[in-house]
């Protein structure tokens, strides 16, 4: 397995720390005038999402983590696993468990493309695109004459996600939603 020594450290590097895959968020090189150099490193543990701060002496090294991001199409769920397929033409499929899918489950729409992070060849996390387009399956009836201002109501989307939408939105409309904030962005013109 490859490893990285302190002078190869940089943000974005994926390494193993305490047995868990981590991504380096920040690397600060510190050295007193004539003394020993250190790297103060901020890492996000990809298993727990927790941010760790660690110090390394110059010359120490960390093992590279076999972590890669792949674009995959969401196929279906069998109740236990969510199945994804590589979009590179190989049609290779990967089953992701509930832990890997996490909160993204509420944005999963068949045939849409997601970023699946593989660790040792198995899905570790599934990240939705920043914006998804989903149909409204349930919401209170639309209110007339109120298209411009004020007021919102909950709407349930086809994936089960519930978002706050303006009062004029009706069942059957397709909405653009920001998955990072979970907020309504706009209506999508149906073609």
């Amino acid at each position: 397995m490859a490893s990285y020594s302190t002078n190869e450290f940089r943000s974005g590097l994926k390494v193993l720390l305490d047995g868990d895959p981590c991504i380096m968020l920040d690397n600060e090189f510190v050295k007193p005038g004539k003394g020993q150099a250190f790297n103060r490193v901020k890492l996000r543990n990809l298993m727990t999402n927790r941010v760790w701060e660690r110090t390394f002496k110059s010359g120490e090294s960390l093992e590279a983590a076999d972590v890669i991001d792949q674009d995959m199409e969401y196929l279906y769920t069998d109740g236990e696993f969510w199945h994804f397929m590589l979009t590179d033409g190989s049609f290779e499929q990967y089953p992701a468990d509930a832990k890997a899918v996490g909160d993204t489950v509420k944005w999963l729409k068949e045939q849409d493309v997601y970023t699946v992070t593989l660790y040792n060849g198995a899905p570790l996390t599934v990240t939705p695109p920043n914006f998804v387009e989903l149909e409204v399956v349930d919401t209170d009836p639309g209110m007339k004459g109120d298209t411009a201002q004020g007021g919102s109501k909950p709407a349930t989307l086809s994936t089960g996600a519930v978002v706050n939408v303006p009062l004029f939105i009706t069942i059957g409309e397709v909405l653009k939603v920001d998955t990072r904030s979970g907020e309504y962005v706009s209506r999508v013109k149906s073609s």
Partner: protein
Amino acid sequence: MTETPVWQPSASQAALESRAQQLAFVRGFFASRKVMEVETPVLARHGVTDLNLDGVSADVSAVGQRGGWLQTSPEYHMKRLLAAGSGPIYQVSKVFRNGERGRRHNPEFSLLEWYRVGFDDIELMAEVSDLVCGWLDCPRPRQRSYRDAVKAWANFDPFEISDHDLARICEQWLEPEQLAGLGRDGCLDLVMSFAVEPNLGRGHPEFITGYPASQAALARVSRVDGHDMAHRFELYIDGLELCNGYWELADANEQRQRFEADNRLRRRSGKPEMTVDEAFLAAMAAGLPDCAGVALGLDRLLMLKLGAEDISEVLAFPFERA
């Protein structure tokens, strides 16, 4: 993976202009004080033995010699000029330190180094103040001992604390197995880097003096309050270390012993030993005049002038763009 090269400088036009003005200021400062500008090799046959300094090796082949090192500092050559009777000298040069890159470090940087014959560390500190405050227009630095600085910001006496207690303090930054190979000076460097330095020179520039003898490098050592302390000083402004100066060691035998001790430390920590620069030792043996010398980072001085947070703001092309 291919990276798209960035051809533009990372420093602004204003920073480039300020750099040019700074260089003119420095040259004017030394011209008015009759200190002679010199040039010595950037590429030389020997590197340094210093445990914590890694030179950049060069594969030069000429006149039957092979190898070479880009210099980490012009010190040895400048001292050879002093021993040859140059009188007071200064130099602005590019120096190289392998593996050093960060907000305040670039593997290649600009160093101003000067030597004053007949000065001691106290007199040289006064001249450093004249130069730095003349350019930055800042209050004249105060002096504080290394011992007091560590006491103030890390709450222990660096000359009295036991190795065991020191290691315990360091456990807030390093795991016990990482500490095992660090040694006393390494532990002190850790404390200095993370607990002390960020607080030094805040609001008012300060010289730190009286370093432990084990960190003397090329400075003389005196016994003060029952402890051996180096005649070495560093200047800090807003937590940024700006220079490192010595009342220079002039004893060739002592110097040779320090080089040998350095190489023992290098061997122990798995680093290659460095051939000792015999021409430098011969110059010392012939007689280095009593003098004090200092090396000042010009890129960092410019950072302070411009209020820059990152050295990339004052370098035309940091290593990634070079």
